């Protein structure tokens, strides 16, 4: 019986693998459901599978970092394209990809171009560009003329969010001859939501009325603090559209286009246009953007939205060079 089943299974699988174009995504330890890059990447992979009948999408979840190498190898053996998600996969991918020269590898949120592997394409994002627009919005909306930023651990992506946010506030100050200040704090982790909440309360008490949290799950504490504090106090979300988590209290979310990157990468490989190397996606490539502000559109004055649209257009055309480092910010 068991053998019969095995034979049947093999018979069922063979035609699928023989004909279909298989895409396998390997998650990082965050796994599906993290409301951030794993979910976002999977959405992009799924979109391709929905669009083309002969594309099969599947996912392998990693429970710990030691799983990355075996999972990537397993994925490579059974598919045409492997999508590796998250900054922490960079070493594993560098190790596995050269062993499977016929398989395309797509890496999200890290840059492996220095290794020069011909079947690897990686994507990162210009977090500072979306944060720039969020910062401008915060500066313009602040009644108290003080806004806050809360980061998790200062990894490159979080620091870029911070610098871009400060630059956005600076831009508002320059254009409107104001002096909006930015308070900055780091919780030094991505999980302690109580700390996110108390730090937000601390910033509110120091005069801030809008706080942008780029701190993973700590951000949920920031939203709660905004809700408790009531009228006139807001938060800003990060990575994906978080606006629905506290409708009306989250002005906008500074999103990065993880889904679009996964979609584009897989599409290129499917259509035969795969190019190895690295791409950094910003406003110009629609790789980062603000959320649609579903719940807050009506409370934000029209002129602010118009100016943000203008800034976005200028940044796209390269007329504004949005800073990504502390030094560039000083010079900005």
């Amino acid at each position: 019986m068991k053998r019969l089943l095995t034979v049947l299974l093999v018979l069922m699988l063979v035609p699928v693998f023989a004909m279909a174009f298989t895409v396998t995504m390997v998650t990082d330890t965050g796994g599906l459901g993290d409301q951030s890059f794993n979910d976002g990447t999977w959405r992009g992979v799924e979109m391709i599978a929905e669009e083309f009948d002969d594309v099969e999408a599947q996912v392998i979840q990693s429970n710990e970092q030691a799983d990355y190498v075996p999972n990537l190898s397993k994925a490579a053996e059974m598919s045409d394209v492997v999508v590796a998600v998250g900054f922490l996969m960079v070493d594993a991918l560098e190790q596995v990809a050269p062993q499977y020269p016929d398989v395309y590898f797509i890496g999200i949120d890290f840059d492996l171009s220095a290794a020069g592997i011909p079947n690897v394409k990686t994507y990162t994002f210009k977090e500072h560009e979306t944060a720039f627009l969020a910062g401008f919005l915060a500066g313009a909306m602040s009644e108290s003329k003080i806004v806050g930023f809360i980061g998790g651990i200062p990894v490159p992506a979080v620091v870029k969010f911070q610098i871009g946010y400060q630059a956005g506030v600076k831009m508002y100050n320059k254009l409107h001859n104001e002096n909006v200040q930015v308070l900055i704090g780091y919780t030094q982790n991505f999980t302690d939501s109580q700390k996110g909440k108390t730090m937000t309360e601390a910033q509110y008490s120091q005069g801030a009325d809008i706080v942008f949290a780029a701190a993973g799950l700590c951000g949920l504490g920031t939203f709660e603090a905004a809700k408790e504090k009531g009228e006139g106090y807001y938060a800003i979300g990060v990575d994906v559209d978080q606006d629905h988590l506290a409708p009306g209290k989250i002005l906008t979310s500074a999103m990065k286009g993880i889904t679009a990157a996964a979609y584009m990468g897989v599409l290129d490989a499917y259509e035969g246009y795969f190019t190895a190397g690295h791409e950094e996606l910003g406003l110009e490539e629609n790789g980062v953007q603000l959320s649609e502000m579903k719940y807050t559109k009506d409370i934000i004055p029209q002129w602010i939205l118009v100016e943000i649209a203008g800034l976005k257009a200028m940044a796209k055309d390269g007329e504004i060079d949005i800073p990504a480092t502390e030094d560039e910010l000083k010079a900005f």
Partner: protein
Amino acid sequence: MNILKAILDAFANPIFYSLTLSAATPLLFASLGGLFSEKTGVTNIALEGIMLLGAFSGILGTALFGSPWIGIILAMISGAAAAALHAWASINFQANQIVSATAIILLAQGLTGFLLEPVFGKPGSTEIYDKIPKIELKFLGKGSFLYNMIGSLSPFVYLALILVVVSWFIIYKTKLGLRIIAVGENPEAADTLGVSVYGIRWFGVLMSGLLASLGGAYLSVGELGQFTENMTNGKGFIALAAMILGNWTPKGALFACLLFGAADAMNEQLQSNPSLAIPSSAKPLFNLIPFVITLIVVAGFVGKTRSPAADGVPYEKKG
């Protein structure tokens, strides 16, 4: 001199005091829990895991029955259950107490992380549910300094403070307390005099489960109305440190927890103070303030702390 001004700013800010209290509360519950356990001679480093279970069950109860108060009850049940596991292994079977407690921490982390998806439908965090409303002291005048300081606190804060007094009373003013101390100092002698060593130790460990899970429930149903994966983030261990710093007394634990809470609140105020021009790469250093203060206090101000003599030593019943 900017730093001095920034510190004074923090002290002059009423929110500093309310943040101190809310940061100290979960630590205080867990410290008192640890105190009961260790007074009877059983170390309990599982506080971290029990808090996490408490936080999870609190939200689970709220989600299932629609009331955060039932959530608290469920949290206490799960805390007691985890503590019973620890008691059973370390008292009845004389297992190594550190090992059995570590197992509970790992179990709690694994279980709560895993159950999120089947129970709440998504990993990482739950939806937002009702939480225990804060006690508003309106007579202080909304917006006044005193109101901002203590006018809007969670009932958990008051409960924790009351429990300090209750714990002190139980341990130092009752017959039960005398037995607790006797068993923790010299179980052989206590046994000879007819005190049930196992019974007293079971009581101590169960109390630690009940109290630590309340500390966890405060985080979820008291503060956020939501459970997020690994949300205790080491608070159980800090509570353990507070208990030791407080020299295994309820009053000492209170002061130690307030100190940790104040250090944390100070950290938050200083980091965000705009008059201190600190590069953001140095900001995470401020998160070390609580630990630096601990070192200074332990080295400079507190005399030698002394644990119960039989703390951590399994007791084998004679005959």
